[in-house]
């Protein structure tokens, strides 16, 4: 009988389809693994309500465990407690930066209109001279920034609390 630790180590190989350097655990999407009666229950939570990657993640978890010979698996999606960028692991933040995506910074109060956007250092050159182009970026979880020093555009994994 495989242990929970073994299942967790196998799931380390299941990554976000849009950000292939992050495992579901790094992302904080993987909430729990437990053995119930005669099946493994894998609990995941969506980053954003409409995140189209959730279906893929669910299928990837199932196929990864099947590949390892574990067939009795159920994946359950839970909404509460709601996902927050605080759950991104330290390792995950490092991996994001090396992949060219700026990890979430503590953000200004969203109720303040026209507040100066959060200073997000450029993941490519490290400059703090960057500019938000749009609050909404290539996926629901990212905003679009550009670096005023190296002039590269980049994605910012926006803060969600």
């Amino acid at each position: 009988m495989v242990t929970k630790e073994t299942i967790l180590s196998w799931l380390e190989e299941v990554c976000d389809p849009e950000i292939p350097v992050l495992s579901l655990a790094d992302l904080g999407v993987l909430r729990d693994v437990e053995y119930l009666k005669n099946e493994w229950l894998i609990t995941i939570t969506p980053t954003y309500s409409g995140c189209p990657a959730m279906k893929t993640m669910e299928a990837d978890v199932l196929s990864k465990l099947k590949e390892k010979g574990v067939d009795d698996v159920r994946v359950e999606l839970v909404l509460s407690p709601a996902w927050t960028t605080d759950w991104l692991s330290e390792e995950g933040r490092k991996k994001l930066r090396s992949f060219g995506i700026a990890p979430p910074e503590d953000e200004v109060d969203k109720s303040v209109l026209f507040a100066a956007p959060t200073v997000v250092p450029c993941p490519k050159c490290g400059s703090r001279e960057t500019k938000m182009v749009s609050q909404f970026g290539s996926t629901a979880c990212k905003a679009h920034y550009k670096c005023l020093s190296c002039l590269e555009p980049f994605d910012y994994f926006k803060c969600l609390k």
Partner: protein
Amino acid sequence: MKNEALYNYVLHLGDDSLILGQRLGEWCGHGPILEEDIAMTNISLDLIGQAMSLLDYAGEIDGQGKDHDALAFLRFEHEYRNVLLLEQPNGDFANTMMRQFLFDAFRKPLYEQLVASKDVQISAIAEKSLKETKYHLKHSSEWIIRLGDGTEESHNRVQNALDHLWRYTDELFSESDLDQSLVDAGIVPSMSEIKIQWAETVRSVLEEATLMIPTNNWQFEGGRRGVHSEHLGFLLADLQYMQRAYPNMTW
């Protein structure tokens, strides 16, 4: 027996998200600038995601094995419970943003109150959706101010949008007799509390945008009873086409 009041309420929340999500999706590829094209479709995606959770839950309460797809694609106009405001055509960008702002300013306090719902599933969906809605409200508020306090052209367009859409705002706060039982049970908040917060957000943003709240307060309602404007049928024809033409097709 199913809880008719809860079913109606959750269906109405889901339909509001679904119909506005569909309207925003119509901007895909037509946004005035690329960033706004992406912003509107991102917001659409959040709303469709919320609609999926809400309609799944409505289907669960209904107990007839219907999931979000069955509810989104296989009902007729009079079975939708969204408010009239959200089915109104996009018009220009100013009109789309005004519709969005009037709704976001309502949805945020509503979700804040629904987080405290005694119904755990409603509470979970509200907790999740609230985080997204805060971004939506910030985005639409900033555009209303930028357009209203912008050029003469942008000011006139957004004022026209406000004059046109104002007549659909009272319906946001309409409550049926069935809703009252949910309020009494601590499952949903009373709309009078939500309206106070909505009015304050609307007043402060419109004031900064140099826009005037219309004095003609003639109001329309009907959506929550299934009595819709002519626009909903066209929207649904688009939304449902694939499922109606190829029943049970899946991706």
